[in-house]
């Protein structure tokens, strides 16, 4: 981090930024080349997990009838996910999924939020591995829930055979299969990943671009300042994207579970 700041001050930062900027140096062993077992990204994921566990344990350790501020905050998050996502999308059966959805929402929100926290400044979700794993959990979950609710044959019949005359079914079933079982996990993962990746890239371009211009020609200093002002504006845009993507991921998971549980159409 501080090395980064030094590089910026000396005007040595590479411009334009590239994908390699997402691969941060190894922490353990310190500074090792091409070792990605424990990097800043790994550390951030564990910090996020730790913060969430400690926060929810601490805010519910001594619950009050009139909630304390911390308890109110935790209950608001849970209440929001339970009422506005789980129950809204799935109905009463959705309450039993609310704990997982809350965990998912908080984890994505917090790891996304690292993208604009000073000194963290990159989201683990800008590496596709993390969104991909979350999408895989969603995929396994909605299929498992559907199979357990309907039975194997009925579940696949429900989700693959749309209500349509038999002679267009051959046209429709491949599309159903494609969009339900192939595209869903992929689009879920890519949507989150691409948003966080692009957000980080944009901030890099405008920050490093400012340095690149000011060190290329002192007359470009006003444009550099403009570029940094844009960085600040884009940080606010990032915040919007962060919250929205956490929400969208959770809502889509809920909607897939709802689709798996739905009775015949």
């Amino acid at each position, binding site marked *: 981090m501080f090395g980064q700041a030094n590089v910026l001050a000396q005007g040595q930062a590479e411009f334009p930024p590239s994908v390699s900027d997402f691969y941060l140096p190894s922490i353990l062993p310190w500074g090792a080349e091409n070792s990605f077992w424990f990097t800043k990204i790994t550390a951030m994921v564990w910090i996020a997990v730790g913060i969430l566990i400690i926060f929810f344990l601490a805010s519910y350790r001594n619950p009050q009838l009139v*909630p304390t501020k911390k308890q109110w905050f935790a209950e608001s998050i849970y209440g929001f996910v339970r009422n506005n996502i789980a129950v809204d999308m799935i109905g009463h059966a959705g309450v039993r999924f609310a704990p997982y959805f809350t965990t998912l929402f908080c984890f994505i929100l917090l790891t996304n939020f690292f993208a604009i926290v000073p000194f963290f400044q990159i989201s683990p979700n800008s590496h596709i591995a993390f969104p991909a794993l979350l999408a895989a959990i969603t995929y396994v979950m909605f299929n498992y829930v559907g199979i357990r609710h309907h039975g194997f044959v009925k579940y696949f019949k429900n989700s693959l055979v749309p209500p349509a005359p038999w002679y267009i079914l051959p046209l429709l079933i491949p599309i159903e299969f*494609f969009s339900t079982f192939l595209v869903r996990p992929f689009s879920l993962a890519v949507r989150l990943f691409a948003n966080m990746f692009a957000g980080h890239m944009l901030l890099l371009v405008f920050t490093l671009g400012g340095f690149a211009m000011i060190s290329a020609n002192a007359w470009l200093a006003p444009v550099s300042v403009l570029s940094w002002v844009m960085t600040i504006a884009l940080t606010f845009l990032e915040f919007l994207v962060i919250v929205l993507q956490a929400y969208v991921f959770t809502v889509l998971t809920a*909607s897939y579970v709802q689709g798996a549980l739905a009775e015949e159409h």
Partner: protein
Amino acid sequence: MAGDQKPPSAGGPGDYPSGAGQGWTALSYLIGGMLVWGFIGWLVDHWLDTGGIATGIGVVLGMAGGIILVVRRLGTPT
């Protein structure tokens, strides 16, 4: 619960329409239709050497299929 006392539209991400899931489903049907049948058409193209005609037919069929699916799956009020 404390969160229940908030008015339903307190601003923020909660105002995102709850039909978001349906929106994505519709989009994935429309695009998926074109891709699946376009790909099948492309395979037929390579098999029979029809120079792109089968791909075109496949894409159009897939679009039609996607639209039928959107109407059938999402069109009827629940």
